[in-house]
């Protein structure tokens, strides 16, 4: 099959791809700047910005009173203001907005603002937040079986705590928005957002307008990873308020350090666990208390916590289980969506349990995993009552154990460790089972708008956004395949709220699944009209008998009757004829994922349309004197059903995996005692570089297992492989553990930085 490259690749490599900061605007453009709180929790006693206003080139300095509509940033929970009123609750919270002729002037103006705070006590750690006892929303519970009974009868019990650090998204393109005022008070918004419809809503509400007055356009993001699901809205709303006030175009682009300080991260978690298992390592009960650091407001924390809880058992059948989840309020920027959306944190604790069971029983952890996997015909119901269908775990296990030569290498690793004092190797296999669908059921809908122009070219609009994942490429492929035409004859437009309304965020890995179905639906509608017309035309040409519209096939730029293949017409001629025949060649399309529901109060239901699966085996080399680790080899086998585009999907798997490796190893967020983030630039916040990928990196997609009921039998791919990075994390732990012959449970956490590794090793030596 012909290779399909990312539809923007040739623009990426030539620098022609246009991002928001590259859009040419007239010389009226003003630069927006946000004045933010330098303290974590305080009353604003007084302020004065009259000096700043006098600075030449300053066009506006606005406070919350200048917001024409609602001072509200969160559509559901309504607990986050756009601009602070009389209290600030985290460092980086917006207080004033400045518009000036240059970024430099705006920055100078901000230095002239005087503000007096009365500092209040700040909650800066999960431990303090638990003590303080305030959550952003009521806590949740999922429970199955009888854990008390199971623990009473248990042969072995382990208990512990796992600390999981946050993660900065580090999209290459920082948060940015350009607003251009239109006629009346209408606003055109170019926003780097994964969620144009929500950006549209919040801009409308902030300006006191209706959604019909606000047009949001999103061509491409320079990376999103969840960081622009809700938090792209902030700069959009801020710049809209300034543009509305000044009646001039306003652009806000966060400087890298500001972005890192002001925006939310992957949630830190502290998970308390207790597990019961027999002498073979078969798990009978698990009790989890998941404590998430929500930050100052709700944002998406409850959905993220929910996904953490729904993934607490990962790929393993646990007959008796209780998961309690708390989203604690702290005085830090509100934590937010990040690839995996709570799944990684939930799974990390379960994988820790497996790893500890293996150490306790002196068995290999892969074997413990294997006996606990969900089975095909029994032991296949999740703690929240969803039956596992199309379970690919056994197949993947069988293949990867062989291709990775797991057991032979386990022996080699052990031998190496016997012989070497200062270098240790570690090996681990970890699985992932990831639920696909928004757990908030109504979000599982998507729309599209497809135009076939009368020259035969096709323009696809859909509700998804392009952040690099190749969504538009896949949509082009789907449209081309459905219409039986060349990929080159299809184009995907920038996502625009005037084309497709009321869209869901491009998130939860669902972009291709849902928008693909909506595109197909739109094309099906056009094809129905077109086929009727062409069948009729065939009938008129060949007078002996008629053609049935349902028998028409669209393939290789030709439409033909498969029962009478001599009856054919080129796609372009068909379109021309249809146009002259006054046939509607445009249609919208819609899709709602069938059969998903979840009762939050009962913690029960079928939240997911299906599950994605994968496994990874990683081997690391640890220098125990420096704590430096090198990934020697990683083998991945991942399930994407029938891939829509093998190269793009492998790119997602590799990229997600490395991003996960970063979270598990070098990416660390440290705060000082006042709540200042210390790692606020790439100088001290270290994402993986080119030298940090596995020396041998074998990535394969599971072949021959199409998914029923999805677009072209494919599966979602964006998030699940992120969690395959636990193979690296636990391989590092395995290497540390080998120092004391796996007899002592080492201290371990996320991230396993060289510092944390060295401290863990020192502790083992005690």
């Amino acid at each position, binding site marked *: 099959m012909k290779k399909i*490259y*990312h539809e923007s*690749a*040739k623009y*990426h*490599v*030539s*620098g*022609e*791809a246009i*991002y928001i*900061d*590259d859009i*040419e605007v007239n010389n009226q453009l003003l630069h927006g700047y946000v004045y933010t709180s330098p303290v974590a929790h305080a009353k604003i006693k007084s302020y004065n910005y009259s000096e700043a206003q006098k600075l030449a080139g300053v066009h506006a300095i606005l406070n919350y009173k200048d917001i024409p509509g609602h001072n509200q940033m969160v559509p559901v929970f309504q607990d986050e203001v756009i601009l602070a009123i009389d209290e600030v609750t985290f460092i980086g919270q917006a207080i004033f907005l400045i518009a000036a002729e240059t970024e*430099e002037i705006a920055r100078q103006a901000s230095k002239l603002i005087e503000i007096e705070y009365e500092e209040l006590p700040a909650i800066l750690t999960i431990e303090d937040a638990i003590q303080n006892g305030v959550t952003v929303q009521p806590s949740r519970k999922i429970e199955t079986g009888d854990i008390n009974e199971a623990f009473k009868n248990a042969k072995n019990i382990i208990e512990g705590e796992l600390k999981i650090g946050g993660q900065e*998204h*580090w999209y*290459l*393109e920082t948060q940015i928005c350009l607003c251009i005022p239109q006629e009346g008070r209408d606003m055109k918004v170019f926003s780097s957002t994964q969620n144009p419809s929500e950006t549209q809503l919040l801009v409308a509400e902030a300006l006191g307008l209706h959604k019909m007055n606000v047009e949001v356009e999103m061509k*491409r*993001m*320079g990376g999103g*990873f969840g960081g622009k699901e809700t938090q792209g809205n902030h700069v959009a709303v801020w710049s809209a308020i300034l543009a509305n006030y000044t009646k001039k175009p306003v652009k806000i682009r966060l*400087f*890298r*350090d500001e972005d890192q300080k002001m925006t939310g991260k992957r949630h830190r978690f502290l998970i308390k666990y207790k597990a019961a298992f027999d002498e073979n390592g078969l798990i009978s009960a698990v009790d989890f208390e998941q404590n998430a650091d929500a930050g100052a407001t709700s944002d998406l924390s409850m959905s993220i916590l929910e996904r953490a809880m729904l993934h607490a058992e990962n790929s393993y059948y646990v007959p008796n289980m209780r998961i309690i989840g708390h989203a604690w309020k702290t005085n830090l920027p509100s934590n937010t969506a990040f690839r995996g959306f709570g799944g990684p944190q939930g799974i990390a604790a379960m994988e820790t349990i497996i790893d500890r069971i293996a150490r306790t029983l002196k068995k290999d952890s892969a074997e413990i995993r294997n006996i606990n996997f969900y089975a095909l015909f029994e032991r296949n119901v999740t703690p929240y009552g969803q039956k596992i269908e199309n379970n690919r775990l056994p197949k993947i296990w069988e293949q990867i154990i062989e291709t990775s030569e797991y057991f032979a290498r386990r022996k080699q690793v052990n031998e190496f460790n016997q012989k070497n004092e*200062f270098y240790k190797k570690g090996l681990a296999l970890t699985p992932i089972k990831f639920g696909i669908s928004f757990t908030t059921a109504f979000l599982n809908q998507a729309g599209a708008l497809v135009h076939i122009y009368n020259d035969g070219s096709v323009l696809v609009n859909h509700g998804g956004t392009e*952040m*690099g*994942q*190749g969504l538009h490429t896949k949509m082009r492929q789907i449209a081309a395949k459905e219409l039986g035409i060349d990929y080159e004859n299809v184009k995907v437009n920038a996502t625009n709220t005037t084309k497709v309304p009321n869209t869901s965020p491009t998130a939860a890995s669902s972009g291709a699944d849902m928008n693909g179905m909506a595109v197909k639906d739109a094309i099906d509608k056009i094809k129905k009209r077109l086929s009727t017309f062409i069948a009729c035309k065939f009938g008129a040409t060949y007078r002996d008998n008629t053609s049935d519209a349902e028998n028409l096939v669209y393939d290789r730029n030709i439409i033909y009757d498969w029962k009478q293949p001599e009856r054919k017409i080129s796609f372009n001629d068909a379109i021309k004829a249809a146009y002259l025949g006054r046939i509607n060649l445009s249609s919208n399309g819609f899709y709602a994922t069938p059969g998903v529901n979840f009762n939050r109060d009962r913690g029960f239901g079928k939240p997911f349309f299906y599950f994605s699966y994968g496994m990874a085996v990683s081997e690391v080399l640890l220098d125990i*004197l*420096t*704590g430096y680790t090198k990934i020697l080899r990683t083998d991945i086998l991942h399930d994407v059903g029938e891939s829509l585009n093998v*190269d793009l999907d492998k*790119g997602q798997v*590799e*990229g*997600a*995996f490395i*991003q996960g490796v970063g979270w598990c190893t070098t990416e*660390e967020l440290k705060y000082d005692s006042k709540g200042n983030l*210390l*790692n606020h*630039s*790439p*100088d*001290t916040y*270290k*994402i*993986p*570089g*080119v030298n940090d*990928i596995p020396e041998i990196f074998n*990535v394969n997609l599971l072949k021959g297992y199409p998914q029923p009921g999805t677009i072209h039998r494919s599966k979602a791919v964006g998030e699940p492989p992120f969690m395959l990075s636990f193979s690296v994390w636990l391989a590092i732990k395995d290497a540390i553990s080998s120092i004391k012959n796996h007899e002592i449970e080492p201290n371990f956490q996320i991230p396993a930085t*060289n*510092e944390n590794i*060295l*401290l863990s090793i*020192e502790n083992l030596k005690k």
Partner: protein
Amino acid sequence: MTTNKNKIQFLLGDKLTEIEFNSEISPTTTVLNYLRSLPNHKGVKEGCAEGDCGACTVVIAEESNNKLTYKSFDSCLIFLPSLHGKQLITVENVGTSEKLHPVQEALVETHASQCGFCTPGFTMSLFSLYKQDFIPSKEFIIDALTGNLCRCTGYKPIIEAAHKCCGEHNHDYFSENENETILKLKGIKNSTNNIVIDNGIQKYFLPSNLAEALQLRTDLPNATIINGGTDIALRVTKKHEIITTIIDLSQTIGLKKITKTDKEWIIGTGVSIEDVRIEVKDIFPALYEMLSVFGSKQIRNKATFGGNIGSASPIGDSTPVLMAYNSTLVLKNTKAEREIKLREFITGYRKTQMSSDELIIAVKIPIPNTNEIIKSYKVSKRKDLDISTVSACFNLLKDEKGKIKEIFMFYGGMAATTSRASKTEDFLNGKEWNRENIEKAMKLIDEDYTPISDARAGAEARKIMARNLLMKFYNDTINL
């Protein structure tokens, strides 16, 4: 030859470009910001404005001996005046979507771009590798790319793209036009000499020879001296400082020379770290090792010894190594030249013994005796493009019986300056080079230093690292 007042000339792609500095255009405008202000050069991206992500990578070609060398740089760390007489090449100059360069084609075909924001930077790093005209090993490719961050792909396809497009006898638009470019660049250089910029707010001098530079240093003792400028540029890009007077030595002839004798090497402080690194590999391996994890290719192409030593940072990578080699600095003013041991030069946190009329013009590194064992180590969170949490360089001299005659231990990141572990050294001197003594010595390092906790690591981890590096040195030298 004339002095160019307020004006510089360079090639932007093929186009002879002149910039006149005035109250609107500051001489500390970065090349990144300049390019992004133009209508047709928005491919260059700002990802961090501190040389840590490489999204702003450009290639600068320089003429010397009728040949062009193409090197990658972070355009966020270069002030405009230093472009004078050079060819600036951006991603737009390399190729267009209609007519891709082989490097760009390879990136497309290996699916090496996802969100695409870092891609122009990678394209330029690969373009500079392509222009080296040889078949690069994997190590070479990785070395060329450590200064570029990608958050989407996981790098594998980008490495594949490099393998695919880089080779021998590479031919492209630039090689076709090389002679013409050389003529144009020589034309600029022949017509001008010193550059003096004064826009009423800032003064910026680019002296072309050492005498001029020293005179400026005497006349303007408070001026900020830059050579590569990779550190000073951050004051502009991150702290938004307006630096009022700058003496930029990057075009000063006489500082870019390496003189090799049997006894010592004299390295001009204007030689780039990358050029030093390539040269010293066989003679000063400990220096080579350290410089190989110094910043990134882009940073090393710009940064110099002069800057790294002169800034006297406690985490400067080169100082512990140069101290272990017992290097000497050559300082010069308009009247005299003097030499001072680097070990004595740094007096405190970012403080040195340099007088306000002096410049460091060279570093003299003695070639070690055959019985000196010198090794360097750097511990950082990430191996590449990361600042040391702790660095160390050891120099061990054993007597004929194998006992420690003298050991020098220099640590960076453990105190306000690079400093010696004197107590530990005293303990070890005269003792057997064995495990037992090393283990005892490791405990003493705690007495030598009281490190701080910061964003990179806590004090406790720094102590462990410092102790362990001695063990690592022992282990690496046990059989030597």
